């Protein structure tokens, strides 16, 4: 597995069921990024995919969040 932060980066969309990853950054317009950040999608947060799909179901911190495809693509994570 590649441990360097940038090379392993991919969007949340490609994570499989049960996989946990770390949020690297949010690639979105500012107002969208702020909404995601307030829920807990900030650099370094651990995110686990409970059910992939459109929308997908993820656990971020202690919260379960449903995320549509466009927003999944905004969340860039590293394994």
């Amino acid at each position, binding site marked *: 597995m590649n441990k360097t932060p940038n090379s392993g980066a991919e969007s949340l969309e490609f994570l499989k069921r049960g996989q946990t990853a770390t949020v690297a950054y949010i690639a979105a317009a*500012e107002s969208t990024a*702020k909404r995601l950040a307030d829920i807990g999608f900030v650099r370094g947060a651990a995110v686990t995919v409970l059910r992939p799909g459109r929308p997908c179901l993820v656990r971020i911190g202690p919260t379960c969040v*449903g995320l549509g495809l466009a927003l999944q693509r905004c969340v860039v994570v590293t394994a």
Partner: protein
Amino acid sequence: MTAALPVQKPVRTKLVALVGNPNTGKSTLFSALTGVHQRIGNYPGVTVERRSGRLRQSDPGAAVEIVDLPGTYSLGVHQEDEAIVLDVLLARAGNQRAPDLIVSVVDASNLRRNLFLTTQILELERPVIVVLNMTDVAISAGTQVDVAGLSAELGVPVIPTVATRQIGIEDLVQAINRTGSAEAVKHCQSFPDCVCAELDGLCSSIHCRVGSDNGHRAEAMQTLLAPGGYHELRVIQRCGIGMAEELAERRGRIQAAGESVVEVEARVRYAWIDRVLDRVVTRTKPLRRARTEQADRVLTHPLVGVLVLLVVMALGFQAIYSWAAPLMDGIDGAISGLGAVVSGAVPAGALRSLLVDGMIAGVGAVLVFLPQIVILFLFIAVLEDCGYMARAAFLLDRWMNLFGLTGKSFIPLLSSFACAVPGIMATRTIESRRDRFATILVAPLMSCSARLPVYVLLIGAFIPAAPLLGGVINLQAVTLLSMYFVGSLVAIPVALILKRTVLKGPAQSFLMELPTYKWPSFRTVFHRAYQQAREFCKSAGTIIFAVAIVVWALGYYPRPASIAAQFAAQRSAAQQAHAERVTALQSAQGVSAEAANAMDRASPSQGFEPELARVQSECAEELGRIDRDESGAYLRQSVLGRIGHWIEPAVTPLGWDWRIGMAALASFPAREVVIATIGTIYNLGDDQDESSVGLREKLQAATWPDGRPVFGVAVALSVMVFFALCCQCGATLATIKRETKSWRWPIFTFVYMTALAYAGAFLVFQVASRLVG
């Protein structure tokens, strides 16, 4: 004048604001603190509900008013009903003053998320009490919170409560009474220097531009760090366009210093919260979240989950119709009884007609739906309170996307099956304006409970109860079900077209927190249903009351003396004829009695008594017919009748006669009045209800001037489709105006739905009359 006498200062009511995330039991806590004495109003200029009430056990001489603010996750937001929270806390909402004390309600079982808002509130520099609610849920989930430790970390009192079971309420009341306005906290997160510098700069810049009561640090933060948000918009509006440039420069400097404008607040706050929680929370067992996640493995499954949802919906609607039936019959009976009592007590004339035909029948026709509406709201409140509604929105998101809507459109559209008014108000949770407006515009197409009586009346009268599928279901039930589907099916292309034209744009991507499942609190659920019931009765007492009176007046006036004279003559002729027949009978009886005596028979002549009874009942029937013809004659030349004849050419292609056209026209302000209107128009006196055999038979017997029956299957279907698609509801249009802040959208809704209804009724009549004759 001597030295100033000690002036008795008027006791200043202490204003307490309840703030918290959604689903923290805030409303339950509010009810526990205030009891039943609540007032519901609106904040000036916005549609957000303002709920307030007196604290039940305040100290003598010190009145305490509690305001329940809308649930929000953060002070920096994009939705109006969340933005009101910061406005109220900073006394920006109209003429309201700032609260003397803020009570921040947090869910003990989800502390990390809930404390985010609390840290923002602590920075407002006001006295704060933190309520640690749902401690029972937290403990059973294995979360032990060190209350004293949390209080020390936050620097404010922390009161543990279980609002649903009234635990801790006494402590909270005491804390509220004890905490004075002097105990303002000063608690600030340590933001990076570059952010603090820009914040201070922005505060003083706002001060300079618009005065010193503006530019609170908390507002400056939500302006600077939430680009495109509600507060940025407002500050720019107040300070002028130069502020937009200033904000861009300040944000540029923060980015240049290596900070992310949008992330910094969340990162700083969550980092602090995590440190605090490490110290004050101990876990006694693994997270209960596991149970919610297990349940979600089934309930959010794209196939199984949707099946479960369909079963839940089917059971819910079944309950609405079967449980409500006896209650509706009861209300119906009570209203008819009241009408009869009033009829007996008031002399015939305009006043009696106004009271009985106008007010009691009009408002009564609406109140009958109260049980259905209450049960539907109980159903929705239970699903919401236990956390299932968010799953339904999650499951249906991809299906709703196909029609250009979002998963969040589901709850408003479901509510619209009871009544479009609360359905339209429920769209406030949809952030995207386009998605929200598209949902609002199709919500009135959902078959609301006021359409039901029209279906029931016409199906009972004209659709045969032929068994289908080997007797599993009959044609009447299938027709009723189809009427329910017509609106929803038509809503699909309408939404698609709207999202491709006037509201162009893709559906906003789904973003929703799915709360942990919990048992619904019956207090909360019943409270919500009670409030809806009250709102409904209020509207029945005002708008519908007014409409009923107007329709009655249009159908009652003018009353020319010529008609009265004509029918008085008919009546006296009928009475005369009757009297003559009775005399003739009696004399015949006298003759036959003499003959009988002469023949020395004991028994009187046979057949006299029944003959007399027959003549009398014929007379009563004749007089009844004259009464009905008279009210029919009045109606025909009333304002309503004249308009009806004038519009007849327009409704003939739908297969309608002027009377149906008039009933449809009269029910534009509120479709609930249609049964009463049809009743009046069909000469029956108008306290007919949908199950009334009289009205049903009258419709079956109605004919065109040339003797053909007016109604047939085709006409019945045409009328039902018209009602299914038409926006005959003033309350809905007024709500759309309020929610969209423009007359454009209600007018648009009215025009497109009326056109659709006309086209649909035309199509159905033309096709059906060729198929079934």
